[in-house]
């Protein structure tokens, strides 16, 4: 083709490790086959990538490893459709295609000096993970960092191998919750918005970043409003069916905004400006 870069041509990558996080979530750690490209690969926390399984297609996932840790790129995939099903059948050594980074990212510069509250539900923890680890790796730039992470049950909780470390850190206040009591569960029980209200994080000089299933987001937003958070202090990420990932193909728009290039990260204030078509 012409000299300009081919936006649709994935870079080949090798899966170096997989983790079966939950019955429906599998994590893939991969490196680009081109060593120099891997070394030069730059992305920001919250940016997404399109993973390709050739023969099945592409789907969009957040790069949930932080830019500060570059030995591999990590994607956590919840099994939902055709591409994710085939991704789940892959293991280390298998080849996938990657088009990344795409989209915008968390405005971490604007969050410097502020207290940060992460509220993640289920697979929604993935986008939060990248920013949280990035902030922990630049710890001095931020105030108190709080994490509330919930899942339906203990088996539905991803990143379990990291939870002891997160719980043990003095510079991170971690609260875990599940929807219903379960044997051996030592943490909170209750829906995320309710636990959040009990935790009562102060809205003062604070930013809340929340991600999870739509119903959880809906009630979490209500809880945050109750706690005094303004629309500009609440940040979330959106998901849409995507194909091109570069703002052309026309399916992820909400009015004038294209989730693939103007998103996936939006403040609640920005979301309120969008037409009602989530």
């Amino acid at each position, binding site marked *: *083709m*012409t000299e*300009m*870069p*081919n*936006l*649709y*041509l*994935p870079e*080949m990558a090798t899966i170096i490790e997989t983790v079966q996080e939950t019955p429906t979530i599998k994590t893939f750690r991969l490196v680009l086959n081109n060593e120099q490209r891997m070394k030069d690969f730059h992305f920001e926390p919250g940016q997404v990538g399109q993973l*390709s399984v*050739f*023969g*099945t*297609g*592409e*789907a969009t996932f957040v790069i949930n490893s932080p830019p500060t840790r570059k030995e591999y790129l990590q994607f956590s995939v919840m099994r*939902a*459709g*055709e*591409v*994710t099903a085939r991704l789940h059948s892959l293991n280390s*050594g*298998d*080849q996938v*295609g990657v088009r990344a980074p795409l989209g915008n990212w968390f405005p971490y510069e604007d969050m410097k000096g502020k207290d940060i509250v992460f509220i993640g539900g289920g697979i929604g923890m993935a986008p939060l993970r990248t920013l949280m680890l990035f902030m922990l790796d630049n710890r001095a730039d931020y105030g108190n960092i709080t994490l509330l992470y919930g899942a339906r049950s203990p088996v539905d909780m991803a990143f379990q191998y990291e939870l002891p470390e997160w719980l043990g850190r003095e510079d991170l206040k971690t609260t875990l919750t599940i929807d219903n009591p379960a044997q051996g569960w030592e943490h909170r029980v209750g829906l995320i918005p309710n636990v959040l209200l009990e935790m009562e994080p102060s809205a003062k000089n604070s930013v809340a970043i929340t991600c999870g299933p*739509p119903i959880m987001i809906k009630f979490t937003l209500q809880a945050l409003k109750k706690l005094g958070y303004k629309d500009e202090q609440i940040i979330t990420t959106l*998901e*849409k*069916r995507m*194909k*091109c990932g*570069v*703002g*052309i*193909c*026309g*399916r*992820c*728009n*909400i*009015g*004038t905004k294209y989730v693939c290039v103007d998103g996936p990260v939006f403040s609640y204030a920005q979301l309120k400006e969008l*037409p*009602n*078509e*989530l």
Partner: protein
Amino acid sequence: MAQAKFLKEADLAAWLGELAKGRKVLVPQKDGDAVVFKPWHEGVKPVLDRQATESPKKAVFPASEKLFRFSYIKDPENPGKVRVELEEPEKPEPALVFGGRPCDARGFLIFDRVYDSPKTRDSYYVARREATAFVTLACPEASNTCFCHAVGSGPADTAGSDALMTPVEGGYVLEAISPKGEELLKSPLLSDAGDKLAQAERVKAQAVESLPPAPDFAGSPEALMARFDDMGFWENASAKCISCGACTYLCPTCYCFSITDEESGMKGVRMRSWDNCMSYQFTLEASGHNPRPTKAHRLKNRVGHKFSYYPLIHKGAIACCGCGRCIKSCPVSVDIREIVTMAIEAAPTAEESAQPQGAKQ
């Protein structure tokens, strides 16, 4: 501008023969009851007396194109180890769209802002765009469904064309619009237009007069946004729509696509193909959630994209060239002019009973 030329009707085939040397020349030709753009070859008589059924969109944006081929290759030493090879397609061959109308050529200007912007350059599109020239026929007479003059164009609009042909007595007056067009007009078959040029100007003026009164789309971006949540309006506007894709596929400006893999054994292609925002699957997410679940939502997006979102992003440019194909080829005669006009005229809280009716002629 370069001198205007004249082509005798009798020399049309010979000139097409010259043009077809070294490039694919797409001309409108009869295919069943339809008129479609297909490669010219000796003996083909282009249909120039009416607007083609389809637009020449596929010349630059094929209905389906290979983005790349992929093959899984087993390591002979270690069959468990499989690598993937990707192979990009060849450069597109030079092409010429001959006998499209000004609205057809103008359609690509709407593509350009999206496919070839400082932010994003789609290499497949740009390569075909650069390889394709347009010799466009000025419309001598408007159709009932024409409204190019309502979207900033006209029957002799040169925007997007390399040369403009105007039918006059005994042949065509040819005017170069671009350097590419000047090259095309260097044929010895063409003579100096002389006083035929004045005749061509008269044809163009008559064409303008033949147009029905232009619908007024001023304020459409804001008006459509104001109506976004008025689902009663959109349910009415879409009541008769059957949610097929005829309008989008015939449209010179509809540029949405899908990407799918077609696999056969150890190899296959990743393909980009025309997609259609009127289809339920267009926005259906893997979770089963669909942000545009009904035809009312989808028609709102189609009309909104052309007359609101796109102009809001691109300095007021409406993403419609007024060719009218979506109206005349719609199986149920949904009329986009009417929907936009209704959205502008009706106050956002207007009663729900307004039923789409014949456009204001």
